[in-house]
């Protein structure tokens, strides 16, 4: 049996190769009443979302806290197989991790997988390296794709990862530390200054971001005519709505309903992918520092171009024609169109930029997991995996040597 776990910093995507996929929030939460919830348990307690505290096993993209992660994994496995027993000794585990994770932390993960859970066979890799194994909609031949530039916009950061022959080309990997979490932070600052104090409402902020934010095709034009993009978000009053919702034309609301009128917040916040100075300009410490202001800032486009140029010359056109956009933050409306527009501007006229069409009914944040299914259906999985026996023979450092990243400096 093949179990595939895409261990994201926001959601764990877990499931057997035969399906179905289960999504569990990768966090412990503590609500106002002092109860600690695991994974998705807190979602139902909508009346307690205000002032909720998170404890995530990930710290700045590194899986540091196994005392937290262990409980969430146990919960996930329970949800996944509520009826039948999961026998780790009969199970092959495919696990993803963030690129460039601190080796010691990856070693800790390996030790937990083999010594605590006792999985029989194991393969660990960066999530992006699984994406080429997805059967893309427009594919003339079946997976795997040999060349693919994966743009993985997750909760913690946006990674640009060239994958050549299903292995990560480490010299070309680039990171922009703008992910869902940071966008939440910027939105939180803006709303707290202009409207209401929402510092203690992380879940509400996330909801507002998911429902209202979008990437403008032309930022300056959108800003000039921002009244056109006005929308009204009804805040939770804990009688008619617990989570808040977006008002459409037909909604009748009582006169004492509190709402947010959002204008430029909607596209200024995601714009920090293309103008990262937004992160630093609205804060007196960073705005006042000459050092920050004088240093050239690279945006997503620059990093994509840099990443392509760091790859072997013959692979460059192939990578550009095989861009794959994955990750939860890629759900921001217009993400793909804007990216294509910006990359095309930067590159020579005759270079062909193509974003691969994801399969029908597939979700962007589940692509790596689907790729994992593709990989386990291929024979090659037997050659790259490490068995429990081998682990106990060679040790955890050897494991990291097989699965870990290659230094680039």
């Amino acid at each position: 049996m093949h179990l595939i776990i895409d261990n994201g910093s926001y959601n764990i995507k877990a499931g057997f190769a035969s399906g179905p996929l289960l999504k569990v929030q990768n966090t412990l939460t503590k609500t106002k009443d002092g109860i600690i919830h695991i994974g998705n348990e807190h979602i139902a307690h909508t009346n307690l979302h205000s002032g909720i505290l998170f404890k995530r096993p990930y710290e700045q993209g590194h899986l540091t806290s196994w005392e937290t992660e262990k409980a969430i994994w146990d919960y996930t496995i329970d949800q996944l197989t509520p009826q039948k027993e999961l026998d780790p000794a009969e199970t092959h585990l495919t696990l993803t991790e963030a690129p460039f994770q601190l080796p010691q932390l990856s070693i800790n993960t390996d030790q937990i997988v083999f010594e605590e859970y006792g999985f029989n066979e194991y393969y660990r890799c960066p999530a992006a390296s699984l994406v080429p194994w997805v059967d893309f909609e427009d594919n003339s031949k079946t997976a795997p794709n040999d060349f693919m530039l994966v743009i993985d916009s997750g909760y913690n950061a946006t990674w640009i990862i060239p994958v050549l022959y299903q292995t990560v080309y480490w010299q070309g990997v680039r990171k922009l530390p703008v992910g869902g979490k940071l966008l939440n932070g910027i939105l939180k600052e803006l709303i707290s200054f202009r409207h209401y104090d929402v510092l203690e409402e992380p879940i509400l902020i996330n909801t507002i971001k998911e429902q209202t934010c979008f990437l403008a095709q032309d930022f300056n034009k959108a800003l000039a005519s921002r009244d056109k993009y006005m929308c009204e978000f009804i805040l939770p009053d804990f009688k008619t709505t617990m989570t808040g919702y977006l008002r459409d034309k037909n909604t009748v609301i009582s006169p004492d309903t509190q709402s947010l009128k959002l204008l430029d917040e909607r596209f200024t916040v995601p714009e920090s992918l293309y103008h990262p100075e937004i992160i630093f300009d609205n804060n007196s410490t960073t705005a006042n520092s000459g050092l920050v202001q004088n240093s050239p800032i690279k945006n997503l486009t620059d990093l994509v171009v840099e990443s392509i140029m760091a790859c072997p010359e013959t692979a460059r056109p192939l990578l550009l024609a095989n861009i794959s956009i994955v990750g939860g933050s890629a759900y921001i409306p217009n993400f793909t169109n804007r990216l294509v527009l910006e990359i095309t501007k930067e590159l020579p006229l005759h270079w062909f930029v193509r974003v691969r069409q994801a399969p029908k009914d597939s979700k962007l944040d589940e692509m790596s997991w689907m790729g994992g299914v593709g990989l386990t259906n291929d024979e090659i999985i037997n050659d790259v995996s490490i068995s429990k026996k081998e682990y106990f023979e060679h040790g955890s450092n050897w494991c990291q040597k097989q699965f870990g990243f290659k230094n680039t400096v």
Partner: protein
Amino acid sequence: MLVEEIPKSTNPNSSTVYFSSSVNLTARPSSSRHAQSNESNDGASNKKGRQKVNYNVNQLMHAQIQVADPQAGSGPLKSTQQLQLERIVSKRLVDLTREGSSALFELPKNFAYNSIHASLDKNSKSARLGNTPTTKRILSARRNLNLYFEEERNLISINSILGQNYQFITDSEWEQAKSKVRKPVARRLRPRLKLCCICGSNSSYSRCHTCGLFSCSVRCNNLHNELRCV
């Protein structure tokens, strides 16, 4: 770590670093701190009239990295400016990514999740403690990322990892020093956005001289002076 024998003809310009007792003497850093620590190490062996040779490859590599000349492009040495920049940037990023204003909560000592799977739960009394000494250590570590970074011995890995974080913003002068050919680095890749700190529209004025924020009109500027200017 690669340790090789020295071939007969050594090319002083070759990029591979060879270690042997004789090379080690030249590879030893000239900084006083290292000289001191080496002296104290050598103390014992000197009594025998022989100089102690340092065969610790890890230590040697650190020495190599620390004295490496940035012009040669071999060492990831950073300018103090770049370090300061990284400190400011990472502080701002950490501030923004904090969820909720209060600190993280600590797990209570007795916190445990009881799995319904017997195979995962065979030691339910000590569910959090782990099966083997190694996993016991990992599951009760309660350490933060900085501690793990401090412990990591391999500087090259650390530089690979941390280098990723600041790829999007680098001090321009350091960038220039790094490239051997002194070509002008594009200082401004595109015009920066100047957004009013009050209403968010494009600002055509210069920064506030005390706090550096932009404002777009007299009205916003007055509001800014009242509310946001520190």
